[in-house]
Every structure is written in C-alpha cells, then in structure tokens.
C-alpha cells in the first residue's frame, strides 16, 4: 500500500481523471445538443394513452423522468412519468402534459391519428371526421377524408403563398413608397419656405402621389380579402381524443401527416422537409415554430460587414506594429494593450458601441442627413451597421495578433532576399511578406468570425431584435439597408429560450438553433486550426 502512494501513480491518474472529465464534458455537451436538436424533427408515432379512469390522451411522447418523492423512506419504489405533447393549445390551453406511468392502463398507436402542424396555436392531434367545402360535406370517414384532404391542401397552400407574396412584397412596396414620399414632403418643408408657390405645387404633387399609393393599397387589401375568403372556404372537422369537435380551415394547416402509418423512408423524407423548413423559412408563433432564416441571414450579413471592416484595419495595424514602427518600449506596450483588449468583456464593447456609434455618430448622421425623419432615429438607433462595427472592434485584436504572428514567422532570409534584389520596402511587404503571411491573416479572420458569430451580449444593445420586420437587404433602393435592425442566431437562442411565453414548446426550437450555431462555430474554428497547422508545417520546411 505504501508503494501505491509512493509511486505517485494515484496522483498521476487524478490529473488524468481531471483531463478526461473535461473531455467528457465537451463530448457530452455536443452530444446533448446534437440529440436534442436533431431529434426534434423526427416524426415520432402518436400515442394514445388510456388512463385508469378511462380518460384518453393523444400525443407524442417527448420525455420520461423519475418522479421526485421528497420525504419518502428508503426502498420506496421508483415512479416514473412521461411527458406527452398533446398539442391542441386552443382546446386544452397547454401543449404538454406529464402523465404518471402507474396511472396508464394502456398505450396504443391508432393508425388513423393525424398530426396537423398549424400556423397558429401549435400542433393539433386528432382524427378527421369530415371535410367541408362551402359548408357541404365532400368527404366523410377517416380514409376518404384523408385522401380528400391531401388533394385540397396543395391548393390552399398556393393561396397562402400568394397571400404572403401580396402582403410582403406588394403591400410592403406600397408602404415603403408612402413612407418615402412622406419623408420627401417633410424634407421640403424643412428646407424651404412653404409660401413659395412652386414648392407648394411640388408638395401637392407628392401628396397626390401618396393618395394614389393609398388607393393602390386599398385595392390590394380588397384582393387580399377575397383570397382570405377563398382560403378559408374549405374546412376540416377534427375530433380530438376526448370527443370534442374542432373545425379548422385548411388555410391554417402547414402540413398534416399520419406518423403511425408512415414507413421509415416516408418519415425520413418528412424529416428532411422539416429540416429544410427550419433553415429556410420564417419564424411563426413568436419564434417558437417555423424556421430561422432571418436569423441566419442576419448573422451572416453581420459577420460579412464585420469582416469587411476588420480585415483591412487589423492587417494595417499589424503591418504598422511589426514592419513599420520602430520596435521599442512603446510598441511593446501598445502590443500588450492590444493583446489585452481581446480579454476585455464583450459587454464593454457593446456599451462603447451604444455610446459612440449609435448616440454620437448615428445621432450626428441623423441630424445632418435625415432631419426629415426626426424625432424617429434612422442611424441614431441600433442597426446592423453599428452592431457589425462594434463586433469589428471586439475582434480586431484577434486579427492583429494572428497577423503579427504570421508576419513574424516569415523567415528573415525571404525578406532580405527581396530587399537585396532592389525591391522597395512596400514592394517587399506587398508582394512577398503579405502573400506568405496570408494563411495567418486568414486564420485570424476565421477566428474573428467564429468569435463574432457566437457573441450576443454586445449585440443585444446595438441592434439585434427578436423579430425584424424586414431583412437588411431587399428590393427597395438602395437595396442594402445598413440602418435596419436584424435577427441573430445567438440572440434567438436567448430570446426564445428565456423570453418566450411558452418556454416548454420553444425548447426544441432552441436546441435546433443551438446546434446550427455550434456547427457554424465549430466548423470555422476547425478551419482556422487546420490552416494554421498547415502554415506551421510550411514554415518548418521553408526555414531550412
């Protein structure tokens, strides 16, 4: 035994244990998010649970856990319960229900149970009773109705798409035009005396244009109304498991399926389509359902603008520090400061962005260029440009440090060779040093992007919103709207997970978003690591 302790092996293994524990934590975290994020889209079977008192519940099993029994003596048998997503929020009020397993008498999977994904009120679970067109029953019974439903649904989906197009595109255009005309009038009023006759004529002209647009708007509204009528004409009557009847118009159904009859392959196809919807669609139901396309778009665009800002500035600063500045105490101090800036909390940068970019610069821009819109701020409020610049500031130390490292690693003989051949310093830097330091610069940029993608705190105060009305890029001149607020994956996680009214229903959505975010960050980081490793190898060889 004495030998056991003396050998030191126990301590060595304890350090190993600490390390393995850390690895397990990372692996566990990734696995957890993977399982929860990807599992959600799989159409599991609909269970019909009959309880001891004879009442029935219909829904998908979402979880199972032990029931805590505080105060019970040892040896009390474990009791478990399952979490059932029963949906039908408009009927029951709650989406989820915990059911104690010892109260369940029977669980079966009825073949004709149908799941409706709806545009509002979440999922609906039930059985089809009949289909009504113009108030007349066109199909009754389960099988017949199911076939009829599948033939009617594509038509209403088309109408829905048309409605969305009109609402978003055409009415959006009209509103945009009206707003810009209004601002134009306001601008003229601010600049010139209204007494001038020609000015007055101009204003009247503009006002007429507004009237025209308003007329157009009313026409569109009329058109929409008729479309809505058409969409809601066809109805389906669904019977819930406890026998209540609910009439749904086909227009609110996103998709419907009978998971209990589906083959594995059919489920896989559905799974992919749901996955695609998640990535490419807009969110519904205060972000707890649908897709996250605007958040992906916002994140990518923000990172893009940030890269445009951070790359030249970071490289310029690194070039100055490494190639042009006289190496001495001051440069060493500056270098340490820049290094340390990477460790300053991101929220501090957010506060700076709010005070400097938004209030100081944005406020000035508004006063100089957009006085007609005041007191509504244009640039004097959070927006994608300010958020990107704030993140650029946050990540510029990363780029500087990485670039400097790369510049320092360029072998001296290459540099001297270039100078000896008569190249000027600039030519050496531009044609020799920067190309060979390119991988390092790229590494820095990728690391900066990875950091920016995951950062949320500074964005919360510089322009991220839970639901942006429009993307920062659209068809209206000047096409790129840098002053607009935007959505962001990281903020989406925070918002949906912590601020949404129905956290339980939102959780799967958050896991899926998290998975996507982690995927982006991990891929970027791995890319940076791989590039860096290659780079190291190259220098190892070129040094000899």
């Amino acid at each position, binding site marked *: 035994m004495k030998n056991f302790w003396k050998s030191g092996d126990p301590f060595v*293994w*304890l350090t190993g244990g600490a390390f393995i524990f850390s690895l397990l934590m990372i692996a566990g975290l990734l696995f957890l998010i993977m399982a929860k994020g990807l599992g959600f889209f799989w159409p599991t079977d609909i269970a019909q649970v009959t309880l001891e008192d004879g009442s029935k519940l219909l829904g998908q099993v979402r979880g199972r856990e032990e029931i805590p029994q505080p105060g019970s003596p040892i040896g009390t048998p474990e009791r478990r319960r399952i979490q059932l997503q029963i949906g039908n929020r408009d009927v029951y009020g709650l989406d989820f229900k915990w059911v104690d397993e010892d109260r369940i008498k029977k669980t079966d999977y009825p073949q004709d149970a149908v799941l409706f994904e709806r545009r509002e009120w979440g999922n609906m679970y039930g059985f089809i009773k009949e289909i009504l067109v113009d108030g007349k029953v066109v199909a009754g019974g389960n099988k017949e109705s199911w076939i009829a439903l599948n033939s009617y649904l594509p038509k209403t989906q088309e109408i829905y798409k048309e409605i969305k197009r009109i609402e978003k595109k055409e009415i959006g255009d009209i509103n945009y035009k009206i707003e810009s005309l209004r601002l134009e009038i306001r601008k003229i009023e601010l600049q010139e005396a209204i007494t001038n006759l020609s000015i007055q004529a101009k204003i009247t002209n503009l006002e007429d244009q507004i009237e025209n647009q308003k007329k157009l708007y009313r026409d569109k509204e009329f058109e929409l109304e008729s479309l809505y009528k058409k969409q809601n004409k066809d109805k389906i009557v669904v019977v819930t498991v406890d026998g209540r009847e609910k009439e749904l118009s086909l227009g609110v159904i996103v998709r419907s399926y009978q998971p209990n009859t589906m083959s594995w392959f059919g489920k896989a196809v559905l799974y992919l389509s749901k996955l695609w919807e998640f990535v490419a669609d807009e969110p519904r139901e205060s972000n707890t359902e649908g897709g996250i396309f605007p958040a992906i778009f916002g994140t990518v665009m923000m990172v893009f603008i940030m890269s445009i800002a951070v790359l030249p500035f970071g490289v310029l600063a690194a070039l100055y520090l490494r190639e042009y500045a006289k190496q001495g105490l001051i440069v060493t101090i500056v270098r*340490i400061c820049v290094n340390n800036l990477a*460790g300053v909390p991101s*929220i501090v940068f957010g506060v700076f962005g709010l005070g400097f970019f938004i209030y100081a610069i944005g406020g000035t821009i508004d006063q100089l260029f957009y006085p007609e819109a005041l007191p509504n701020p244009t640039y004097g409020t959070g927006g994608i440009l300010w958020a990107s610049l704030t993140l650029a500031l946050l990540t510029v130390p990363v780029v500087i440090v990485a670039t400097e490292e790369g510049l320092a690693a360029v072998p001296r003989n290459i540099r001297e060779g270039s100078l000896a051949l008569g190249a000027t310093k*600039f030519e050496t830097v531009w044609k020799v040093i920067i190309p060979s330091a390119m991988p390092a610069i790229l590494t820095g940029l990728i690391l900066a992007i990875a950091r920016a993608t995951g950062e949320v705190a500074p964005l919360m105060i510089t322009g991220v919103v839970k639901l942006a009305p429009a993307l920062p890029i659209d068809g209206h001149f000047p096409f790129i709207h840098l002053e607009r607020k935007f959505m962001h994956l990281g903020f989406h996680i925070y918002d949906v997970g912590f601020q949404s009214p129905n956290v339980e229903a939102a959780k799967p959505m958050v896991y899926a978003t998290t998975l996507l975010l*982690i995927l982006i960050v991990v891929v970027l980081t791995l890319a940076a690591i791989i590039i860096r490793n290659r780079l190291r190898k190259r220098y190892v060889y070129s040094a000899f």
Partner: protein
Amino acid sequence: MSALPNPKTKDEQAARASAIQRRRLTDHAARAVVTFGGSGIVLCILAILVFISLEVYPLWKGAKAELVGRYNLVLPQRTPIVTTDRTVGDSNTSESSESQLTTINGSAVGSEFPILALGVEEYKKIGYIVTSTGRIDFISLKDGNTLEQVLIEGLDSRQVTSAKGSLDNRKFTLGTSDGYVLPVQINFKVSFNDNDERVIDPEVVAGELIQVDTFPITHVAFEAPNEGTKAVAAVTSDGRLIFLSELTTRSLLGEEKKEQFKHDLTSQLNGNTVTAMALDGFPDNLYVGTKAGKIFHWDMRDKANPKLNDIIDATKNPGTAITALGFLIGDRSLIVVDEAGDTSTWFLVRDEESPGAKRLEKIHELASHQAPVTAIAASARDKGFLSADSKGNIILQYATSERKLLEIPGQSIPIKALVFAPKANGALAVDEKGTLYDWEIDNPHPETNWKALFGKVWYEGYDKPEYVWQSTGGTDDFEPKFSLTPLAYGTLKGTFYALLFAIPLAILGAICVSQFMHPSLKNTIKPIIEIMAALPSVVLGFLAGLWMAPLVEKIVPAFSMMPLVLTIMTLISVFLWRLVPKSIRGKFKEGTEFLLLIPVFFLGVQICLWLNGPVEALLLGGDYKAWLLNTLGLQFDQRNSLVVGFAMGFAVIPIIFTISEDSLSNVPKHLTSGSLALGATRWQTAIRVVLPTAAAGIFSAVMIGFGRAVGETMIVLMATGNTPVMDWSIFNGFRALSANIAVEIPEAPHGGTLYRILFLAALLLFLMTFILNTVAELVRIRLRKKYGQL
C-alpha cells in the same frame, strides 16, 4: 543575379528613372499610409477607454447655477384694512403680529417685505408672489415687470398672515388674520399665438374657506389627499396648535356622511413655542418644530384620535430653534433645519423595541450653513432640496447621497422666500429687501457620489443603511438606489464559484497533458480544447439555465457527492491498473491509458444517481431543500451559483488549460530529464521540478481565466435569477455587473444618471480585466525570459 543590361537610349533611361521615382513615391506613400493608418487604428482602439471615461465623468460634476434675473419688487400698495370685530386689534397689531410670525414655506422670518410665499410655473416664464394683502402678483421673469395682480376671491379683503406652498408650487394654503384657512390653486393655461410663441395665462382658483379659529394663523398646513378627506393643521398667534379634519364617506346607497374632528393639541406641547410645522400628504403624520429644538410627532392615522408619538431633540445643541420643516418629494423624508444652520433629513423607522411602532430617526446629516436657515424648498423631481440662510447663501443638497451640489453665495441679506422650479431646473428667491433672484440650475446627476455608489446608504423605508441596487421604481417619488456594491459582489461570487470548479480541472488537466502524455497525442487534444474555448457563451448559458438547472435541482445530493465518488473510483482504478501485468500495460501509448477512466466515470455518475435517493432519505431527512433551509438556513433557487459556477467554469477551463499547458510544457527539457535521471518518479518530477518552475505561468493563466469570468455576460444573465442579493450561498443566484448592464442599458435614457452609472460599471469591468490581463502578460514575459536563461 547578372548585371543589369545597359540602357540603350536616353528615352529608356528617362523611363527607368521615372519608374524608380514612381516606385520610391509609392513606397513613401505606403509608409505614410501604414504608419498613419496603423497608429490611428491602435489609437482608436485605445480610445475606447477614454470615451467611456468621458461618458462617466459628468457624474462627478456638481450642479451649476446661473443668475439669469435680478429684479427689485415693487412693494404692493397697502390698502388699509378695515378691521372687523373678528380680527384681533387694528391693522397695526395685525402688521406687528405678522412681522413676528409670518411663515414662508414653513419658515419664520422677521419681515420687511410682506411676501408670504413664492412660486414659479413650469416653463420658468412667470413667477408669482403671495403677499399679506391677499393678492397674488404675477411677475414676468423676462424683465421683472408685474404682469397681473389677482385678488384672491373669497378672501373678502381679509389679511393673510401665513401661507404654505406645495412642492409643484401650484397649490397654496393661506391662513388669515381672523382664523380662517383657504386653499388656493394656481393654474396656467398654455396656448400658442400666431407667431408660434408660447403664451401662458395664469388663473387663480380659490377653494373653500375653513374656519379654524378666530386668532391670526401663523403656521398653516392643509392636505386633501382625496375627494373625501381634508385635514388642516394650524398654529395661532397665541401659540395654540389646532388640528381639524373632515372625512366624507359615501355609503352604498349614495348617502353622504360627513365626520368632522377638531383637536386642540396645545396642551400636549407643554408650553413649547411652535416655530415650524409640516403635515404629510396622506395625511398620517404631523410634525411640529419648536423654539427649543424639539420635534413633536403626532400619529394622525386615526383622525378621531391623534396620538403624540414622540418628542425628539432634533438639533445638535439642545435649545437651538428649528426654523423650518418640510418634506422631500414623496412626503416621507422630513427636512429639518435650525438656527445654527444645520440641515438634516429624518424619517420613520421601525422600532426594534416595540414591534409595530415607528420612531422618527435622523437619517442624513447634511452640510451646515453656519447661519440660521431661513427657508427651504424641496425639488419636485428628485430627493434634493434647497435651503437658504440669513446671510443670503443658498445650498443645494441631495439627501440620499448626502451630497452638497451647489452653494450660491449671498449678498448678506436674509432670504425670505425660496422656491424650486417644478422641473427642478431653476430656483427663485426673494430677500428681505424685496429683491427677486432668478437662477437657472443645471443639475443632471445629483444622485451619485462615492458613498451612494459603493457605500451603505439608508434609503427611505429601510430599517438600516444597506447596499441596494434598484434603479427604477413605479412612482415619481421613487428614490433611486444606485449601489454598485451588490453587483460587484455578484460578479465576484460568480467568478469565485467558476474558478473553484475550473482551476483544479484545468491545472490538473494541463499537468496531465504536458507531463504524462505522449507528445503525439497533443495534436488531437489541442483542437478539442480550442473548440471548447470557441463555444459561444450563449449556448452554455442556455444549457445551464434550461437544461442543467432543472436537472441539478432534482439531484443536488448526487451532484455534491460526485467529486468525492469520482476521486475514489479513480483511485480504485489505479489500484486495479497496477495489478494488470506489465506486458499489457506496455501496449498503451503513454497517456492513452487514462481513456480507461471513461467507463469508470460513467459508472461513478451512475452510482451517484443510485445513491441520491438513499442519501437524501438517510442524511438529509428525505428532502434536501427543507434540510438546507432548516439546518443551514439556505434558500434553494433553481438558477443558482452552483449552476453558474459549472457553466462559467466550463467557459474558463480551456483558457486556463491552454496557458498553463503552454508554460508547463515549455519548461526546459534538461530540468525534467535531470530529475528523472536522479531517480525521482514522474509525479515527483512534475510536482517538485516542473510545477515550481512554471508557477508564474499558471498564475497568469488563472488571472486571465479570472478576467474572462468577470466579464462573462450571457451565462450569468441566463443561468442566475439576476436578483441583486448579497450572500455567499452557493444555492442562490446573484446579479453581476455585466448582466446588469445588458439588462438595464436598453431602458436607460441617453445621458441620464442610470446611463452613466452603467457606463461606470463598464469602465470598472474594463479596468479590472485590463489590469488582470496586463499583470498576467507581464508575468508571462518574465517567465519566458527565465526559461531562456535556464
């Protein structure tokens, strides 16, 4: 390289020369651009600190006052008052009594100019004075001309002997020479004329006359908090204190029932002379200040039966007369000023000795005037007030922070009446000679000083001084509580628990990887750790708050057993491992044998979960939450420091690990080789040779990890309850500086006090992390030098 070919023609020569010229120019230009741009960018980055400091600086600037007008008021013409039977004596006596006893906003002044009260409307265009003639004069503050003189209706040419104005100086209560009390309201109608200029039209609405007595009233207070309740307190010229109240209640059937109570409280005064009086707006409390420096406090909650609660010596030296009493906004804090020039605020505090009772206590001792205080005026916007003395000096102070914001030096003429503009952006004062002063006051951040930001402050409604952060409240009279201490405390608490978890794991892991693992394994390990470092904190926060917190809540006993169980399991596995024949052991690459611990850990965690129930039942009485509360007095919150420590530790581990590992594996090889050659075990080498050499590097790793944990925002925001409590319990949450900024800055108005205080919090975070990182960096630079020399 061969020699350059000779130029053939002159043209070519010229072309080459100009090309060289151009290249040189480009080179110079590039140098200029890089130098200028590069240093500019570096400066810009460093300017962040400067900018944030600039935003914070105004918090420390005091208030500024500018005298914008100074006018000599024309003495109102004295129409000789026809005395009636009811008045005491003739006009002469009434005048003489007035000269002894008139009050202005509660302050007694020996009078020359017959002003009783003063007011100003909210745009500071018109000031108005109430004089003893029963007339209100409206004076333009542009030029000092009298705009209008309004005789108060219903006064019927009675002489006014006392007056008291409300905080917004729109309501006045007048006491007459024949014992009547009259509430008066002044309204301003604002309209715009053709030139878009604001036209303000004053209007005086008199209320109902209330007879209190037949003697002249020297001090008066009137409150009507709602339709049915009225209360009047008055002091007569012969020193009697009378309280009158009227309650109108409406029964269900709509019948009105009027109750009237009249109390003569003179006997309870014990012969003290009243010099000041204040009645709060509820009206629940009546405070009376006397010539002997005592405050009498009556509890008026039961209107039928006022109860003398307390008699307190309120001045520093007993016997100093109290010259005025008044309330800060909210009518809870009583301002007490005296003849010696001392100013203080008081409010009711729960009495520890007799439960349920409240006692008046001195809360804030403020700056002294060194001369008798003649008038006070509270701000209608914040907990600040103005006080003026007999030398004409005026002081602006803020009660909560006990901060003296401004002192306006006087002309050595006593100020008789003083008033704060309704928007707290100006003040009017009238001195004994009848000069009206009009000040513009700029007082953007009265609430802050070091004491209010970091010290214990006694806030209204609290039983003792405390550290509190509560930046906004529901009502206008809310007292903002800006103590950064609980937030800094929260930050440190979170950091402490995070490091408690992260330091052992990270450093032990670093020792393992650098000393006991085959170097070829490092290439696979490093990327994993780097990915761990890159995980967005919002992800960790989300998992901690929504997944882990509910999970941990169920298995707290198992969770706390885990470190012990896992350690024991590891030791057992070492023991077993040593029994394995060497031939098998040799097949493992150095370091890969630790992978055998993975199943052991799974087993260990499972054992902990199995033990959870029995341990809870046997040791913790079956319910650990109840046990915690009863035995240790700890409240269990679901989102607590345990969860935050775990999640934030997770974020900090890779940072500490990477830097420690760097410094550990860079320890010169000859040291370890020498140690091993001398027969030390690998553990002895690691702990006695490598660790001491690399200690500085590990220290700097911990510092940088500390810096990261201090600034972490999203994890703290999502995984704690964000309540600014101050205790070290691991089972409840906290509110950190960073999360506080994220929560509150979107709501903070630009340029306001809260906005700047949040900038101050950001500045604190910046400095803290910057200093930590700089120290760590310097330590590392020194360490590298040391390694070079070894």
